[in-house]
């Protein structure tokens, strides 16, 4: 017959005995320690204020020069889209050359080198939306890389290893935002990496520096004092294409339902 006292004693002993080896593993797991240490590192995020963007395209120009994407190639790490909604309810969107030269024409570029003219009085609403890599928390492009040539760093930036990429294009297909392309010189996958060489030196990204209107800002989400973090935490921000479950980390102020 087991007494209540001995039952309690024994079960405590067993529970304690079980807990010790488990907690040992907890305490001395170097990966976990490392992860906790990394929590104190950065998590780079981006904040775009679409209400401030005027579509000058200096960000695109700056990015192309800084990151050595050939200036005349029709691909770009970042770009600006123009949305013009007319009174008949139609949405007209374009981004001529990714807005490398801004928007030199009033007409909307509809492909085949044709422009669609829109009368000033027909415009219901119109605005610009800068785009760049979302450095997603669940990057689908990284998931589908067959060789581990693209990956996410501890501080949340997705990079491409130019020496290891085989150029299959699966990551380009996997990105719902269309930010990836083949670099015309290196012939490997290429994308925005928040100017990793600049932000890790304490600088701003080239696009942030070249924006005169404060429409673009880069920040560290793990620093509660960071002004960008404060905006993201306290104001009404939105992200693009949340339905894909990618958890994008580029946040938008003033996003409209027309934005693709």
């Amino acid at each position, binding site marked *: 017959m087991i007494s209540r006292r001995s039952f309690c004693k024994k079960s405590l002993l067993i529970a304690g005995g079980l807990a010790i080896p488990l907690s040992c593993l907890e305490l001395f797991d170097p990966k976990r320690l490392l992860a906790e240490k990394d929590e104190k590192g950065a998590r780079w995020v981006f904040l775009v204020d679409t209400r401030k963007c*005027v579509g000058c395209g200096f960000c695109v120009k700056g990015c192309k*020069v800084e990151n050595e994407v050939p200036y005349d190639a029709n691909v770009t790490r970042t770009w600006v889209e123009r949305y013009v909604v007319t009174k008949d309810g139609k949405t007209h969107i374009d981004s001529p050359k990714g807005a490398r030269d801004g928007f030199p024409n009033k007409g909307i570029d509809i492909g085949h080198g044709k422009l669609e003219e829109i009368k000033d009085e027909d*415009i219901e609403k119109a605005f610009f939306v800068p785009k760049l890599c979302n450095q997603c928390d669940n990057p689908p492009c990284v998931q589908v890389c067959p060789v581990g040539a693209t990956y996410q760093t501890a501080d949340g930036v997705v990079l491409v290893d130019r020496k290891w990429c085989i150029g299959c294009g699966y990551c380009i297909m996997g990105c719902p935002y269309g930010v990836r392309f083949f670099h015309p010189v290196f012939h490997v996958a290429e994308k925005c990496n928040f100017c990793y060489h600049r932000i890790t030196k304490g600088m701003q990204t080239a696009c942030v520096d070249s924006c005169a209107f404060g429409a673009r800002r880069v920040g560290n989400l793990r620093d509660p004092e960071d002004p960008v973090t404060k905006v993201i935490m306290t104001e009404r921000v939105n992200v693009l294409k949340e339905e894909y479950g990618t958890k994008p980390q580029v946040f938008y102020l003033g996003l409209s339902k027309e934005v693709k």
Partner: protein
Amino acid sequence: MKSHVWRPLVVVLAVIALVLVAREVLVPADFGIGARGYMYGWHRAGNEQQWKDVKVKYKTAAFCKDCHPDKYDEMKESPHRNINCENCHGPALNHPDDPKSLTIDRSRELCARCHTRLPYPNSGRGVMKGIDPKTHNVGLDCVTCHWPHDPRKEGHKR
């Protein structure tokens, strides 16, 4: 393993061994699972440093300030105060060693990026001072009449 039926298996095992040896030789030593686990962090660790080592080309106005304080101060007082020097003069690269002098973009297209009139009500562009480049003093550089460092002043007097 006495039966001849197992012969193909021996060949298969030899091939597998060959691949494993090839992996040892060809896979970079620093290839492994990074901070984001196998799904998002499978990579060559050395590549992170390679990206950090990329050369900075745009040095920002803080870099220009020490040698060109007059220009810097003039800009900071003007409506153009938020425009970085290198938007028109850059990139600085290793200036003043290389390049010795920076190229200056004085083109109409550069000014037109912001000052082409686009009547967009939900964007700051709608309230900016703008012109129609097709009719506004065609053929002349904007800097002939407007001083870019402070557009309130008059343009270049050569």
